[in-house]
């Protein structure tokens, strides 16, 4: 069976763990610790190593979902997973102080993966803060990286159907660049 690694990244509190829990068909392997940095994200726990989930596509293909911590002090985990990944789902919470700045910074950090594989941006918490719009993200990414095309969706990370749409868009994006079979041979 061919196995494809998808990296799920984004700032702390964007909904990465929630998204993997929504998508995975197995119980998610999580590495949560009590969160003492409540100023950055007011939530009781935070991922400190990775989240892991799986989706079986068909008889021959399986997606392995790896979520990484949002804090930059854990960026060694970003590199470990990035090396194996085919594509990136970037989650950004729209109620962050500078969500577009966060999005462009993550795209820059994962630039190699975005160029060799593909990426989608899922903007979460748009029900809390409606601006910037998805179009604003597209414009900002295009201004900074005119050579890269990244689809942007407003998403509820808890909603499996919405997350499946994002994942499907990413897989199409990856396939458009290079057939999966060749990438993972």
């Amino acid at each position: 069976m061919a196995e494809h690694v998808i990296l799920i990244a984004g700032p702390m509190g964007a909904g990465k763990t929630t998204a993997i829990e929504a998508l995975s068909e197995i119980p998610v392997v999580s590495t949560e610790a009590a969160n003492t940095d409540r100023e950055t994200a007011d939530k009781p726990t935070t991922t400190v190593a990775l989240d892991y989930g799986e989706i079986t596509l068909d008889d021959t293909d399986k997606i392995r979902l790896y979520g990484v911590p949002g804090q930059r002090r854990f960026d060694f985990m970003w590199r470990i997973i990035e090396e194996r990944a085919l594509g990136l789902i970037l989650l950004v919470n729209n109620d962050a102080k500078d969500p577009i700045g966060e999005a462009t910074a993550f795209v820059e950090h994962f630039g190699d993966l975005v160029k060799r594989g593909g990426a989608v941006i899922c903007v979460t918490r748009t029900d809390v803060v409606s601006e910037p719009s998805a179009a604003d993200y597209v414009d900002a990414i295009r201004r900074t990286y005119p050579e890269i095309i990244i689809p942007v969706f407003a998403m509820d990370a808890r909603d499996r159907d919405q997350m499946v749409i994002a994942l499907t868009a990413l897989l199409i994006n990856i396939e458009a660049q290079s057939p999966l079979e060749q990438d993972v041979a």
Partner: protein
Amino acid sequence: MTTPLHRSAQTRACCAEALAQLESQCSSLKLAVVVSDDGFEVASHGVFNQQGNRLASMASSMQALGDAAAREMKLTPCEYLLIDTTDGHLLQRRIHGYPLVLCAVFDHRETVGRSLFAASECAQTIAKNMLQVAA
């Protein structure tokens, strides 16, 4: 809101005292750091510049992965972790009763058994010091 352990002067002092004691007992100790479960440095010994913050983040991730692996195997939470190399070894020990982990690096002169014993004693000292502070 309670003060996070890594910002508590009393907690930092408790841990620093225990690390100094560990250093006095083990000449092979290269560096040691006490970290919060979410990867913040609480106290350190023999650590320079940003090395402590880096080690704190990595120790937190390794401990969480150890706990996750134990959980997957239906085992109790991870008590200690060992990374052994020809130059020495890195040992992590959970501090019972607190969301804290001791991470210590010993050079090749120390046996694993001896460093595990010393790290366990240090972890117990930290827990005891913390209890005294709370009392």
